[in-house]
């Protein structure tokens, strides 16, 4: 596909400030490229450089091979449409007049709007679900309506490149999908789209490639799974996150677990958490934030609890997906249990595969806390798990209600020094 927008070692910024240095990026017809990065990293500045609102102090930006420097503002506006972060409307033009302003770069000085212009405006308003607002004064409309009108205005420019600067930030769920689906459709029909996203899941879902803007540099654009990694999130966004796949769309999905800065330094004591199937994720996070040195028992890969334990950097025994807690894993868990001040058994169902997690606790029964007790419905092992639990209870294991605060209260007796 042909390259529509290219940053060729472009350094962009404002008078006296370089915001992003030597940026290289090519956006081809038919693709959506997403820009992600922390606030103030220069994502918007990269877009603004294309429309002359930010300065290109070195290198160049080209549109379909032509340097921006050689284009008049009108020529540029025929090629590039922008949907800004914030649309201001302090004067009472009607929505239709507002959208028709997008025709400006196509009209000669004395040329009047033609029937073709007005029907084009109607069409783009219909596509952005704003036609019903046509006669409303724009200064009475909501931020979401204005943002869709700005998109309609940009489309009225008939651009080959569309720049979106967090264009969906003021939209409700329905309109956000509508606008981004429309953008996807436009790209599929040949438009080149460069979009700034704050929502990483949306970025992953709608972009063909993502590029990270951070520390004054633009990273290489690559497919979302290659960019949205736990390492990148920790380094660039300073967040420990679980990176998984959205169960519905299959797109990469990011669930932030905690901020790097929020990890407490002081240790309250050590706790081993026995979990699985997502029963321990919240508990591990809370214990970790509260200042406990948390470790986890044996967990299967692909399990949320394992992903969270990994994201938090907790010591744990990682099993293959659907793998059993074999004697070796059980021994490892027993070793962890022996050194922990306390062991919390989350509300996890036990079957043949994970019985080992329970068996490993035999030696430390007085330091075991069952969250939400141990009821029969958690036993899928034909009575074996229940028997083990009864044994532990007889040897001094506690039962507390399942909520996290009760668990934290129970732990104090083991770890208070």
């Amino acid at each position, binding site marked *: 596909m042909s390259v529509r927008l290219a940053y060729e070692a472009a350094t962009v910024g404002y008078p006296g400030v370089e915001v992003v240095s030597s940026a290289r990026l090519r956006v081809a017809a038919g693709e959506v490229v997403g820009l992600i990065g922390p606030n103030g990293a220069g994502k918007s500045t990269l877009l603004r450089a294309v429309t002359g609102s930010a300065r290109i102090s070195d290198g160049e930006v080209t549109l379909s091979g032509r340097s921006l420097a050689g284009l008049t503002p009108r020529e540029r506006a025929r090629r590039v449409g*922008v949907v800004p972060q914030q649309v201001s409307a302090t004067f009472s033009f009607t929505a239709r007049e507002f959208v028709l*302003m997008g025709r400006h770069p196509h009209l000669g000085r004395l040329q009047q709007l033609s029937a073709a212009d007005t029907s084009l405006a109607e069409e783009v308003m219909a596509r952005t679900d704003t036609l019903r607002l046509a006669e409303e004064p724009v200064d009475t409309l909501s931020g979401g309506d204005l943002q869709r009108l700005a998109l309609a205005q940009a489309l009225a420019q008939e651009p080959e490149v569309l720049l979106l600067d967090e264009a969906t930030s003021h939209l409700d769920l329905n309109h956000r999908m509508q606008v981004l689906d429309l953008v996807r459709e436009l790209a599929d029909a040949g438009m080149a789209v460069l979009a700034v996203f704050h929502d990483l899941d949306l970025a992953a879902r709608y972009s063909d490639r993502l590029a990270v803007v951070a520390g004054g540099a633009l990273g290489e654009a690559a497919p979302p799974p290659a960019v949205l990694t736990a390492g990148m999130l920790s380094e660039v966004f300073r967040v420990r996150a679980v990176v998984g796949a959205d169960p519905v769309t299959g797109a990469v999905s990011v669930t932030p677990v905690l901020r790097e800065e929020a990890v407490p330094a002081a240790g309250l004591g050590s706790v081993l958490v026995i979990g699985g199937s997502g029963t321990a994720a919240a508990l591990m996070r809370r214990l970790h934030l509260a200042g406990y040195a948390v470790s986890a028992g044996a967990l299967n890969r692909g399990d949320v609890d394992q992903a969270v334990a990994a994201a938090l950097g907790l010591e744990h025994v990682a099993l293959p997906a659907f793998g059993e807690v074999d004697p070796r894993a059980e021994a490892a868990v027993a070793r962890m249990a022996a050194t922990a001040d306390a062991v919390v058994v989350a509300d996890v169902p036990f079957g043949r595969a994970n019985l080992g997690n329970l068996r490993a606790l035999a030696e430390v029964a007085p330091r075991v806390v069952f969250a939400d007790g141990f009821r029969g419905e958690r036993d899928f092992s034909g009575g074996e798990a229940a028997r083990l639990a009864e044994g532990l209870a007889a040897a001094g294991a506690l039962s507390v209600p399942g909520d996290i605060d009760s668990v934290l209260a129970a732990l104090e007796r083991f770890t208070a020094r």
Partner: protein
Amino acid sequence: MTAAPHPGRTRRTVVLAALLALLAVAMLAGVGLGAVPVGPADIVRAIGRALAGEARVPGDAVIVDIRLPRVVLAALVGACLASAGVLYQALFRNPLADPYILGMSAGAGLGAVIALTLTASATALRFGVVPAGAFLGAVLTIVFVVRLASLRGALDVTSLLLAGVAISYVLSAMTSFVMVFFRESMTSVVFWMMGGLTAASWPYVWMVTPMLLAGIAVPLLSTRELNLMLLGEDRAAELGVDVERFKRVILAAGAVLVAAAVAVSGLIGFVGLMTPHMVRLALGPDHRVLLPASALGGAVVMVLADLVARTVLAPVEIPVGIVTALVGGPFFVWLLVRRNGHR
């Protein structure tokens, strides 16, 4: 609403025709009313005779040589001030901008007074030098005021208005200083400064007319850009306006208009503020209508204000600037109060 592709065009024609008719009526009233009232038919006949070069009848001189140039000049000055108001309101995206409040009138005044005193002996020079001095004063003032208001980064409106008012005071003081130094011309300058059309004559008309045409031509060809400027400079640039160049062109065009008005009539305030505002309330913000309608509206306002100035205390004449300030000051306050009430 309507399927017609250009619903605005016929409306625009109707509005402008109505304003033109209103202006004609106002001008007839302006010429007709005075110490010696003259009927509309007599006015038309007298003008007809003058245009055809026929012999004058008694009374023609009052109409053709005294009242008519004054009314025409009032209309031209009103058109200049109101158009300039429209331009600055678009440029600064604020309905409170006006050449008087921005200090441009005072700047043009100082420029004109300096030009006036420098050429005191050579009357012939004045027609070229006084407007040139006024233009220079207006341009320097607006550039300075805008710089001052954007010292802390982006141009913010409160700073702009404050800077304009402050600079206005300084420039007025400097004007007074110049006048004290050149005592002999003081009385006429003082009267001129208060804003008046007493000295109106045909040569003034011939001087202002080309300046009005020159100042309003480019903006009339750029009404779409003026509309786009209302969306903010960044958005205007995104939609294809060469913002920096356009701002300079409009600032200069506005300065020509202000200079024309100030050179012949001194400091007349609030016409550039009130007129566009009333037109905008009635007809909306679209400059394709707003600019020509404000020019015509300003002409009407000025002709009527001058009529009041001449007749209300007859035979004493009060400077028209006093009339516009008495009406415009409270209007400005009302605008401020209303604006704050909205926020």
